[in-house]
């Protein structure tokens, strides 16, 4: 067995052990009560089988009696859009707001980062404001953002944006300031004007720094949206979680958490793939993950 296979086998084995403890651990209490902590009570953490059932129901794959809805014409779509929304509409709302928060945050972060990175004067003028605003815990701003932008999508996008902007901004700023002077001079001797120096030297040099910030930026976008949904929203996975807390439906909460986990992993992997392609010239990107 190669080292890689061994690692994979161990990973899978660990998963099975954890799932088994989660599913049947509480039942052991009847026999060996001293070894089973109270925290394993399904009342707190639910059970994999329960979570799976709720996942099928919330995702409109099955109804509460356990019948598959996928097979029946139209029922699936009807369920997806029914009432206060299904897992699908909540997930879509969270995804959409994360996407926009990420996009606008990254765009503005790169733009402002490059601008201030190139102008010593502007950097000096804005520095105290940026430092002050960035030291404010963003979560504390959410109620204000909701007052300003309402319970809809915009407030979630703005929350995500305030988190994403600073990560991307600081990295772009540093990256732009760290551009090799000799690269700039070399470009100018080869005939580059100011605009061409920006596009052919500043942008590619700073790109490695910008990308280093995109992985945390994706996570921050998701955090911003979820926190926004906690505090006040009409839909979204954050709302599912908060409602499950209020009604003590841990299985529902677990479903939302797993969907969030999958979204987080997929987004981070996606960013890394883009990064790997655009930074091919940096050898080490081929090896690290």
């Amino acid at each position: 067995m190669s080292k890689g296979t061994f690692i994979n086998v161990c990973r899978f084995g660990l998963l099975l052990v954890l799932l088994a403890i989660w599913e049947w651990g509480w039942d052991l209490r009847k026999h060996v009560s001293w070894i089973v902590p109270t925290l394993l009570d399904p009342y707190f953490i639910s059970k994999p089988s329960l979570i799976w059932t709720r996942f099928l129901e919330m995702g409109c794959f099955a109804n509460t009696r356990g019948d598959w809805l996928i097979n029946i014409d139209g029922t699936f779509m009807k369920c997806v859009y029914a009432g206060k929304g299904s897992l699908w509409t909540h997930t879509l709302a969270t995804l959409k707001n994360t996407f926009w928060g990420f996009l606008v945050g990254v765009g503005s972060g790169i733009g402002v980062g490059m601008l201030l990175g190139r102008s010593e004067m502007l950097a000096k003028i804005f520095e105290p404001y940026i430092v002050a605003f960035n030291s404010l815990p963003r979560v504390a701003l959410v109620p204000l953002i909701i007052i300003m932008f309402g319970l809809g999508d915009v407030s979630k996008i703005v929350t995500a944006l305030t988190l994403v902007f600073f990560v991307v901004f600081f990295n772009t700023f540093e990256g732009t300031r760290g551009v090799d002077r000799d690269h700039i001079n070399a470009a100018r001797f080869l005939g580059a004007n100011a605009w061409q120096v920006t596009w052919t030297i500043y942008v590619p040099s700073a790109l490695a720094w910008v990308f280093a910030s995109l992985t945390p930026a994706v996570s921050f976008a998701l955090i911003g949206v979820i926190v926004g949904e906690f505090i006040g929203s009409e839909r979204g996975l954050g709302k599912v979680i908060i409602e499950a807390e209020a009604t003590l439906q841990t299985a529902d909460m677990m479903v939302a958490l797993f969907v969030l986990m999958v979204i987080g992993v997929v987004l981070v992997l996606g960013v890394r793939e883009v990064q790997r392609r655009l930074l091919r010239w940096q050898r080490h990107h081929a090896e690290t993950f």
Partner: protein
Amino acid sequence: MAPVNDMDMLAHRPAAAQPAAAASVRQRIEVRDITKVFPLHGEDLVAVEKVSFSIREGEFVALLGPSGCGKSTILNMIAGLITITGGAAYLDGRSVAYGKVDPQVGYVFQRDTVFPWRTVRRNIGYGLELSRLAKAEREARVLEVIRQAGLKGFEDAYPLALSGGMRQRVALMRTLIMQPQILLMDEPFGALDTHTKLEMHKFLLEIWEHERQTVLFVTHDLSEALTLSDRIILLSARPGRLKEDFEVPFPRPRDAIRLRESREYSELFAKVWHSLGDEFAKTKAE
């Protein structure tokens, strides 16, 4: 950083500089009483003091001196990369202004300045790409240059995958493909090992003996200066002053390796070495 007005610089020493009068031989590079003072811990450090020389069209001149004597400082003032404290520099009779880059000047840096995010092909084609040359013609010229530089097979390699010598060849060709009439070179082979350096000398001689650009080549390596140049301008230890001017009369085309075995080479080497040795001693004494 705002470009410094040329008049401001001249204001320091009103009597110093007059543009070159129309001479019978065309002076491509000229410096007159050029001086550079750096502020250092509140004191003024004179790096270069009143250096004057001129370089004819098609001449290959080496600027030689111990390290810290201000060779690179002079080159950078001529290139417009740093301000001139006193005196003036002229390229083709036009005075040099800080921050203004002359498009007919090619500059090869001491440090590796190949763009790491561009392949060999796109590094060499960079200048042509900016000049909006038609893609087909650009590609053809780039490939020709790549062949000439012995980089065939590495067209699509990124610089990080290349050796130091190959990278410096890319940097050199990236400059030469723009066909600059004046070449300023700041110890371009300083970071290379002896063997690679010799290879680069052969390579540069071959190109230069064909193209005959006007070259100012900064180095602290006497054998390099003797191998490549027509003339060696020797600077004193800091503050850099003009010490001596040697003609290097070896016939061309030169063979970088054979040349070193000749008696004339040894004689001139000894002569310059003696003069240079005094300056090394001064640097050490400080």
